[in-house]
């Protein structure tokens, strides 16, 4: 029997129509199927330098993300980063990084489907986030490039501030919580939508 590559489904399949009906001042889009790798390495160690050389970036410090390149690095903990790359690069990237690390101690795990990514933009972004996020999103406190793993309403998220004053942001959320988070975000926009 012949088999074809299966059609993928993302945690928020079917939500885009709902997102499209939100006011222009808050746009929500799921960016599905991104390559996501968990990188665990002691910062400043030879293994960390090997990873940085292989990726061509410096691993960002606490609560920061480097979103400049094709492979983005999000700080998750003192020896933990989430590397985010375009879809379907997981296998190659793991292989490349493990080769670069060699015998040094660092680990790379493919967690691509563990989370999905929501891109939020528009001037309501900050206020909508403030409905469920206890962290001060003022640009003087949380500037562009901030990367915070925290609670948004009752879901754990990693929040990356991408635009000034949180005018745009990425939310990475565990796949099983994505539906809850989407419902919460859409409900949070009710007031701006003008309908019930």
């Amino acid at each position: 029997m012949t088999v074809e590559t299966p059609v993928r489904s993302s945690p928020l399949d079917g939500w885009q129509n709902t997102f499209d009906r939100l006011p222009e001042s808050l746009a929500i889009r799921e960016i599905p199927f991104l390559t996501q790798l968990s990188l665990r390495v002691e910062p400043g160690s030879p293994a960390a330098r090997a990873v940085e050389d292989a990726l061509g970036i410096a691993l960002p410090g606490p609560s920061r993300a480097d979103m400049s390149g094709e492979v983005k690095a999000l700080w998750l903990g003192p020896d933990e980063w989430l590397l985010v790359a375009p879809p379907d690069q997981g296998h190659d990237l793991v292989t490349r990084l493990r080769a670069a690390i060699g015998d040094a101690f660092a680990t790379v795990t493919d967690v691509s489907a563990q989370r999905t990514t929501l891109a939020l933009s528009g001037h309501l972004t900050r206020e909508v986030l403030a409905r469920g996020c206890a962290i001060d999103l003022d640009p003087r406190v949380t500037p562009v490039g901030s990367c915070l793993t925290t609670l948004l309403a009752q879901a754990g998220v990693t929040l990356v501030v991408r635009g000034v004053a949180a005018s745009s942001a990425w939310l990475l959320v565990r796949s099983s919580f994505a539906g809850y988070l989407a419902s919460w975000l859409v409900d949070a926009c009710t007031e701006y939508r003008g309908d019930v």
Partner: protein
Amino acid sequence: MSDTYRTADHGHLDRGTTLSFVFDGVRYTGHPGDTLASALLASGVHRVATGIKYGRPRGIMAAGVEEPNALVQIEAPFPEPMLTATTVELYDGLVARGLGGQGRLSDQPDPARYDTLHAHCDVLVVGAGPAGLTAALTAARSGARVVLADELPLPGGSLLGGAETLDGAPATAWATAVIDELAACPDVTVLSRTTAFGHYDDGLVLALEKRTDHLGAAAPAHVSRQRIWRIRARQVVYATGAYERPVAFDDNDRPGIMLAGSARTYLGRFGVLAGRRAVVFTTDDSAYRAALDLADAGMRIAAVIDARESVAAHLLAACAERGIEVRPGHVVTGTSGIDRISRAHVAPFADGALGERQGVDCDLLLVCGGWNPAVALFSQAGGPLVYDPEPGAFVPAGALPTVRTAGAARGTTTLAGCLADGVDAVADALAALERSVSPAPLPAVAATAPAAPGRVLWRVPSPQDTPDGSHQFVDLQRDALVTDVLRATGAGLRSVEHVKRYTTIGTAHDQGRTSGVMTSGIVAEALGVDIADLGTTRFRPPAVPVAFAAFAGRNRGELFDPVRVTALHPWHVEHGALFEDVGQWKRPWYYPREGESMDDAVQRECRAAREGVAMMDGSTLGKIDVQGPDAGVLLDRLYTNLMSTLKPGRIRYGVMCGVDGMAMDDGTVIRLAEEEFLLTTTTGNAARVLEWMEEWLQTEWPELRVHLTSVTEHWVTIPLVGPRSREVLASVAPGLDVGNDAFPFMSWRDTTVAGAAARVCRISFSGELAYEINVPAWDGLAVWRALYTAGAPFGLTTYGTETMHVLRAEKAYPIIGQDTDGTVTPQDLGMSWVVSRKKADFMGKRSFARPENQRTDRKELVALLPADERRLLPEGAQIIATSTVPAPPVPMLGHITSSYRSDALGRTFALALVRSGTRRIGETLYVPLDGETVPVTVSEPVLFDKEGARRDG
């Protein structure tokens, strides 16, 4: 009859607009800007409620949240109980009725929205009166991030109710100008109709904003009706003002008895004269302001009864100018009237003795017993209070490092003092933040004579013809009398906290704003102690009533608790699955077909798994990637059995115990590579197990070179179960040699399943030939569908958690957390085989040797077979040795942990933890249920395929 008590030109009302409302069945009108209370008073309505205990008529006593009497039930547009008429903004179509203490919750769901918003600031100012406004303006001009919250719809606080001028213009014009400047600052948030009600740790203040309440039925449905602000402030300034307090005297609860300052507010803010002919009873100068303003607006002030021996000359002169008689050294001893006061009884009062009484006719009695600073929030924050005998009140004893008071809340009594206070408090706050200060300019205040000292008077003795205090109300909402307080002290209570609980004083919606300090005063007098030593009762949030709906906010309905779903969830919904909640997960419970009962469906699903082929969604299993050179070392320490000897490509079952030796979790461990394992945890324990492993790794064994990563949701996991599972798998995994030798039990293979990269494990939680297919979650739905299609010719059936439980219980595979409860060792579960004898140590090993865990009468997992093969025993049922229940204490042998109807066995069965269970096999025990005892036979736990012949197909 509406507006008959309205003056021509006072107040902040939209007089061009008329609002219609119904109270106690009668239609009235009012104007935007009115409260329900002011609109009723404008129509001459004083009696609005009935006392809860004695059924006495009650009127409107205050103009704000301190109101003890005027509780109302809103009937329309939406039923809501227990609001104070003095805080309900009037809207068109309002229907309300007075309440005798208890309201009625609506039996309909509340259609309104409620929400929450987080805010952060350098300085939070609570109160937009004179002190709050200069405070907020100073903070704003100094460049700080500011939140200003005020409970009223208009700025000005006490200025709204008065006739003061600032910079030669009405003070409210100054207040409006300040608010306009603040609102234009990008770093300032001005919140009106917002009441701070709780001060919590680390500068968190919760405030309730009533956003659309005042719009009534016109409120837009998509805008939240109320919002709870969670304001995290580095510095807080409470400029919350002060509450006037009454004096207790006989029959001090009649409608028409009102706080003097409140009557002034009704005039200044609402243009309402609360009566035609008033008697004013005061202990300080402040009530003269009310008397003079009301007289100027046309009210007849029959007399000012001043408890002090002498009154300042300028006040006497001002009264004389208006023809107001002043009687120093007098008190009000009682009142007459039924639905409304008709007369005040007045007598000289010197050296604690009353002189001859005389009646003064009136329809309004204004009372002022001094002022209590509004210190509830400051006190909640831990701010110390001290009794100041001069105003006779508890005032803040200084400031806290991050919490301050200003204005009347600090005990300041003059307008000029309040204005300056706001600047000073914020200057201190900014200094604490190491910021420079740009003080707000202070507006010019018209010169006033300094106030003379007040007299502290908690109560007037009852005239000799009535029992002392038996008609003197302390807490009008609770109908608590002076005699109740004296009964409490007579019973030996010495603490105001105890008196509060004994009498219920201060426990109503108003939090004892008019009764609390009075109670302390009366207790102090009764006990002969200093009120300063007695103190007040503790202030606790919420300081004002807050609806549960507001606390719930948007966490209602589908957002009440996060619902976690797997990637396969849409399929389960499409195919009619019923769901079981497992933690926050929704798991398919069973898939009933048309007309099937749960039993029917589960029996069918079980039969498919045992005789044909069946599959389920196992994606919720916790999955942890364990990677690094010391991965095997870590697992050897945490599992009871040896994991480091596992070969890549192979799988081992493992149990984790706590240091106490009790089973904590179980699952399979896959060796992916020399330095990488993947372990599974039970669904409900995934986060806990990872945190537990991290705790040991991070705190005890940081030298181990190993990392843990949760991959639970990266994978969709599909157990494919049954004698024909091999054929189904072969048809979708053409590259996989599924033969028993090539792919033996407890091994795994990477392959392609239905076109998707997959890891297939040969493990079984049912005893049948079974595979567990793991694919990245985004391929899960497609692979599941492909399996469903490929399995159709084999009769592939989907099954849910109930069938999974029956199948595993028939094989006595325990569920940690269902068949165990934290007191059960692996040995108790009959799983000594999973406990390594080779390893020198592992988590829990030392505890196995504890005498308690060596006892021969421990509870052990066994199966129970009811004598009646159709009898399904309830899980949790107790087990005894005798067919009749002996006298208590009944010796309990254990309890049933799992109980099912088995298709394969053709009967019901149960698993149970039974004392010395394995030595009782074959015995008959009894399960007492509803007056009968059900006989059961103790059996070996494994009931189906004891030889394990089926797992290879």
